[in-house]
C-alpha cells in the first residue's frame, strides 16, 4: 500500500505531462481524422510502391546508358535514368536518349535528359528527330530546340512554321524567336 501511495502521485504527474501531448496528437475533428487517415495511406503507399528510384538516382552515366539500352528495363527505370542523366549526363548518353524521342511515354523524359547536355551532339539529335515526329512529340522537340537556342535549326524551324499543323507552326515560331533572341 505504501508503495502504491508513493507511485500514485508519480503516475498523476506522468499523466499530466503526457495527456496534453496525446490529445494534441490525436485527431479530434472529422476533418483531422480524414487527414490523418490519408497521411497514413500515403505513408503506406510510399513504402509499398514498386517504383523506387534511389538506386538509379545514384548511378553514373555508363550505367544509366545501359538502362536506356536494355530492352527489359522498365519504363520507370528508363524515365528515372533520363532524369538522372539531366544532371550527370554527357555526350556519351546522347545516342541512347535520342532513341527515346519517338517513344510517346518517354519522349519527354528523353528531352529532360538531353536539354542540359552542353555537347553539340544533343542539338544534332534533336534536329534529326524533327523529320520523324508529328503532333505533340514534334512540338516537344521543337520546344527543346528553342530552349537550347540551336542556330543550326533556323532553316528547319522556318519550314515548320509554314506547315499545316497550327500548333506545330506556333511552336516553331516561338522557338525561332528564342533562337534569334540574344
Amino acid at each position, binding site marked *: 500500500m505504501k508503495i502504491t501511495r508513493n507511485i500514485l502521485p508519480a503516475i498523476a504527474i506522468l499523466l499530466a505531462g503526457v495527456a496534453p501531448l496525446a490529445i494534441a496528437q490525436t485527431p479530434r475533428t472529422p476533418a483531422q481524422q480524414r487527414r490523418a487517415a*490519408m*497521411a497514413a*495511406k*500515403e505513408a503506406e*503507399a*510510399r513504402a*509499398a*510502391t*514498386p*517504383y*523506387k*528510384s*534511389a538506386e*538509379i*538516382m545514384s548511378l553514373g552515366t555508363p550505367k544509366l546508358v545501359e538502362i536506356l539500352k536494355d530492352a527489359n528495363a522498365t519504363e*520507370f527505370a528508363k*524515365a*528515372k535514368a533520363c*532524369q538522372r542523366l*539531366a*544532371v*550527370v*549526363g554527357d555526350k556519351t548518353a546522347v545516342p541512347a536518349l535520342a532513341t527515346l524521342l519517338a517513344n510517346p*511515354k518517354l*519522349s*519527354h*523524359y528523353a*528531352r*529532360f535528359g*538531353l*536539354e*542540359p*547536355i*552542353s555537347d553539340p551532339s544533343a542539338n544534332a539529335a534533336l534536329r534529326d528527330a524533327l523529320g520523324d515526329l508529328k503532333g*505533340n*512529340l514534334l*512540338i*516537344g522537340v521543337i*520546344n*527543346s530546340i*528553342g*530552349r537550347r537556342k540551336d542556330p543550326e535549326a533556323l532553316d528547319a524551324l522556318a519550314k515548320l512554321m509554314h506547315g499545316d499543323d497550327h*500548333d506545330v507552326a506556333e*511552336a516553331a515560331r*516561338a522557338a525561332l*524567336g528564342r533562337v534569334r533572341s540574344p
Partner: protein
Amino acid sequence: MPTNKNLVSRRTVLKAALKASAAAVAPMIVPSSALGLAGAVPPSDRITVAGLGIGGRGERDLGSFLSQKDVQFMAICDVRNERREAIKSMADKHHGNRDCAMYSDMYELWDRKDIDAVLIATGDRWHTLLSILTAKSGKDVYCEKPCSMTIGQSRALADNYQRLGRIYQAGTQRRNGSNFKYLFDMAESGKLGKLHTLHANVGPGDRWPPKTSHDWLPAEPLPPKQVVDWDRWLGPSPWRPYNSLYVARYWRGYFDFHGGGILEWGSHTVDLCQFAAGADETTPIEFDPHGDQGDTPYSIHCKYANGLKLVMRDKGFDGLGSCAVRFEGEEGWAQTGDRGIVETSDSLSAYRKEFSDSRQATTYHVRDFLDSVKSRKQPRANALAAAQTHIGCHAAYIAFQLGRKLKFDPATDTFIGDDEANNMRSRAMREPWRLT
C-alpha cells in the same frame, strides 16, 4: 360581329402594352448595391476576379478576396469537378446569386474579357506557366507560392511580367504581415545597426524534408476525365501513373511537383530576408549546405556580394511559430514568426512587442494586390522580387542536393565552375507546354 379568334380587341392591345411598358421599366429599378449605395462598391470600381485551381490554401486566399467589398468573384477553373462545385458554392453564397461560372479548361477562362484578375492556387508545378499565360490573356495575377519549380522558370516569370506590364503578387503574404513589417522598420530605421546576418526558417525537416523523392506511387485506375483530368493535372511535369493521393494534396515531397522544405517555407522567409536586405533585385552569391544530408537538422549558409550573411535553417526558432526570421545587426537582434511575438536582444528590449493580427497577413496582402490592380503600381511581392527570392531558394536546394558549396553569379543566373549545378537550373516541360 367578328368571330375570328385571331382578331385582337383594343382592350387586349392596351393591356399588353401596359405589361410591356412595365417590363421595360422594371430593369430601371436597380439594387442599391449596383449603384454603390449602402456602403457597396459600384460596379465600375469593382475588380472582377476568377480562380484557377483552388484547393485548401486557395480557399483561404479566396476568403480574403471575398472579404474585400470591391471584389466580384466571377468564375472558377479546376481540373477537379469536386473543387469546381465547392468554390462555386462558396462564391455564390457570398454574392447571393448563382453567377459563378465553372470551367475545366483554362483557355475558356482566359477568353473572358470581363475578368480583371486571377487567383492561381494550383500545385507548384503549374504556377509559373499559368502566371505567364494568364498575364498574356490580359489579366493580373495573385499566385500562391512557391512561384516556380526552377531558376529558369523564376527568370521567365520576371522577364514576362516586365515585358507585359501586368500586376503580379506572389502569395508571400508575410511581406504585409504587421509583425514582419515591424521588423523591416527596425532594420530600415537603423535600430538594429548595420545588418550582418539574416536567418530564415526553412521547412522543418521532420515535416518538410529538404530532399524530394523521385519515386512514383503505385498506379491506380484512371478516373473519368470529367472527374479528374489527369493529363491537365500533370501539366508541364513528367508523366507518371495516376494515383488518387497526388490529387488529394499528397503531391508534395516529389521532385516533379515540389521543391522540398527549402522552397516550402523559404519562399516566405528567404523572401522576408531579401526584402530586409534591400535585395529584391539580386540573390546571394554563395550557398554552403550543412548537416549530414538527413532530414533534420539542416542549414544552408549563404552570402550576398556585400558580405551580408543569410542562414537558412530548419531549427532554432522555438516559440515563434512557423515561418520565423531573425535579423542581426551591430546594435542587436530581433526575431518574429507567425505567433506575432517580436523578441529582441536585451539591447533592444524597448522594441519587444506582440501583434494580435498576425493571422490577417493574407487579407492585407490581398488588399495590397487589389490596390495595385487599380493604381497599376507594383505590389510588395511583385514578379521580380518573387523571382529573386525563388532563385535563391532553388540555388540553395541545388547545393543541398549536390551536398557541396556553390558559387553563384546573380547577373547571369549561373553557378561558377559547376556543370552539374548548372544542369539543374531548368527542366524540360512535358509537351506541348513551354515557357515563352
